[in-house]
């Protein structure tokens, strides 16, 4: 909420700044077609992720093909597969290591809400610790559903204001997660 108020203030000062809006649009256009993925794959959805990246569905068509295994160079954290509580600090660390701007993509029911695993060991959705941009349900999701999610994310990225960034670290520190 605070961010939104600031945004209004920002806009108020600049008035109808056409230039800023145009720059935001251009940068948003550049960003939305050039996601470098960080695939954080822990479980069975990974198989379906391969199909998404493979020749039949080809995530490269959306410009999101280059998996960068260094979080510094990645834009989109794709969390694929069940995240247990043991995994949370690792996921949080990877998220914190990513350079701004960064987005999080929850892939599959386990990541979105814990899915089938409503138990003591599984995190009930990664949005308990990270800000998630797109939730894609399914166990695992159909590749088309992933592309739907990706296009929804592209719509957000296109219209983002610069004042949204930096997003900062995750909600909890490493000590709190342990």
């Amino acid at each position, binding site marked *: 909420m605070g961010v939104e108020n600031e945004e209004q203030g920002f806009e108020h000062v600049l008035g109808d700044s056409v230039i800023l809006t145009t720059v935001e649009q251009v940068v948003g256009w550049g960003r939305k077609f050039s996601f470098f993925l960080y695939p954080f794959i822990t479980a069975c959805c990974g198989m379906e992720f391969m199909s998404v990246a493979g020749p039949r569905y080809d995530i490269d*068509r*959306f410009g999101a093909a280059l998996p960068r295994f260094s979080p510094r160079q990645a834009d989109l954290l794709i969390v694929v597969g069940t995240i247990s509580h043991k995994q949370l600090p690792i996921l949080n660390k990877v998220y914190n290591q990513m350079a701004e701007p960064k987005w999080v993509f929850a892939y599959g029911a386990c990541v979105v809400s814990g899915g089938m695993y409503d138990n003591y060991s599984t995190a009930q959705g990664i949005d308990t610790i990270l800000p998630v941009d797109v939730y894609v349900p399914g166990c695992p999701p159909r590749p088309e559903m992933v592309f739907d999610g990706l296009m929804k994310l592209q719509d957000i990225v296109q219209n983002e204001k610069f004042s949204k960034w930096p997003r900062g670290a995750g909600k909890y520190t490493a000590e709190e997660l342990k």
Partner: protein
Amino acid sequence: MDITLIPGYQYMPELVEMMLKIVFIFTMNVGVFAPLLGYVERKQSALMQDRIGANRAAILGFTIFGLWHTMTDAIKLIAKEDFIPEGADKPLHFLAPFVAVVPALIAFAVIPFGGTYYLWGHEAHLIIADLDVGILFIFAVAGIGTYGAVIAAWASNNNWSLLGGVRTAAQMVSYEVAMGLTIVGVLMVYESLKLTEIALIQEDFFMWGIFLQPVGFLLFLACALAENKRVPFDIPEAESELIAGYFTEYSGLKFAMFWMAEFVEIVTISAILTVLFFGAWHIPFVTHDGLLSLLTSVVGADIGNLLLMFIHLAVFWGKVCFLIVFLMLIRWSLPRFRYDQIMKLGWKIILPLALVNILATGVILLVVK
């Protein structure tokens, strides 16, 4: 104002020519080939894997085969946060990408990309600096280029980076020796270090390096790929072992510069291969003078020379493009070597083979003469 009053006016044509050539090479490398190679790498890998590749970005409904994705990548990388890790050596961290890019560009100074043309009384040589050490200069500059990776590795304050840097240093030292020896056979055949002279001899189709030195070509190709640090010799940035090797801690524009350095190196390697083994700017079975007299008889001497220059430029860059596609093919086909295999290949296979190649070339040359 009389132009002759300007001090040093007699050097003006040379100066203008030099500036034009530098600008041309710079734009070819940084402006045309580096972005285009990003696209080619993407699209070619996609086609090789039966995919279609990037094609969604569009301006006014035109996707132009996904070429916009190059632009989106550039915009994204420029707008990305420039990250400097804690405990990093900040000046060196800043310096490293430049150290990686600049030598790759400088190496082009001694590569001829066209012959000599007489344009309106001015003699134009299409080479920036025709040094008599030629090919050695390229080796020297390639050696400097190593420091980009090493400095980046050290400055990042990261264990994976450091390992990548150590591997880079080891690989570069090993393969520079082998690379120097593989090229000796070529130099013996053409009896010159000057790349322009080597290129001029190859006007005759059967004097192309690929026919005279096939073994030398293969060995040099392997060494050049290793110097370039790409698959199958990408042990310094082995993703499954070292995250991203020496540029693990780089983001945004600096990371893009490492990328650009890699692409410029590919162009440089392709250009060297073209000059040494594929007849530089010469068209097979067509001599310079023959084509020139034909063009002169049609459009006159000056325009003819100009036309010939453009034809030769097109031929040269066409050959370079072909080799680039070939190098990309290798990059997307072959699996990565293990570290010990790379060292074994360098010291135990390529080096002895290069020595045998030198010996054989020497014997044949003695017999022929």
